[in-house]
């Protein structure tokens, strides 16, 4: 299985949308840097992310959420990842696709 990472805001470009279009069920998506805006509960990208949550695990990097003051605005179902989890996710997947 592939670990996908996205570091771009879905409100600024199509990177997250392309990832969600191609990601296979059962895969894992980790939102990092400005990618964590994809974890917002009430944005124009929320519906697509919510739909994706039915088939993929989605994590958001907690330090990036904290820096941006987003911890209290998250979609239910998004899992928080610290740097330790980030390392575990990379280690636990055979391939990493970085959507940058």
């Amino acid at each position: 299985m592939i670990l996908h990472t996205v570091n771009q805001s879905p409100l600024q470009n199509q990177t997250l949308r392309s990832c969600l279009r191609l990601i296979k069920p059962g895969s894992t998506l980790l939102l990092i840097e400005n990618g964590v805006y994809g974890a917002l509960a009430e944005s124009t990208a929320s519906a697509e992310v919510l739909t994706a949550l039915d088939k993929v695990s989605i994590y958001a990097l907690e330090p990036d959420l904290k820096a941006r003051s987003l911890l209290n605005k998250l979609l239910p179902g998004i899992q928080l990842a610290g740097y330790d989890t980030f390392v575990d996710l990379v280690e636990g997947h055979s391939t990493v696709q970085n959507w940058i």
Partner: protein
Amino acid sequence: MSNDPINDPIKKKFLFVHRKAPYGSFQGREFIDAGLMAAAFEQELSMLFMDDGLFILLDQQQPAAIQSKDFSEPVKKFSSYGIDKVFVDAVSMKERGLDTGDFVIDVNILDTNTLSELMDDQDIILSS
């Protein structure tokens, strides 16, 4: 004396359009600092936050978590620099599910038509 730059400096209307999210790069941060600098030269300044630039205004950012400088810190200095024209695009706000209670300073929320007029009214527009 119409050409005395010391006692009668030329004043222009500047609009800074903040469109980039904080922390992804330092472009946005340097752009905010440039705005403060323009204020020091006593120009007529307006600040507009739209698109992902709105996220610069969020209260309670904790940049220590990623060893970064606080992007909202220069925004908090706006009033002490005499910058009181701070505008936010209503459409961008709605797209992100944000409301005024989320912001670190008081802002004026403008609809699309009013924003177009604001832009029309400027001498110089700078955008990030």
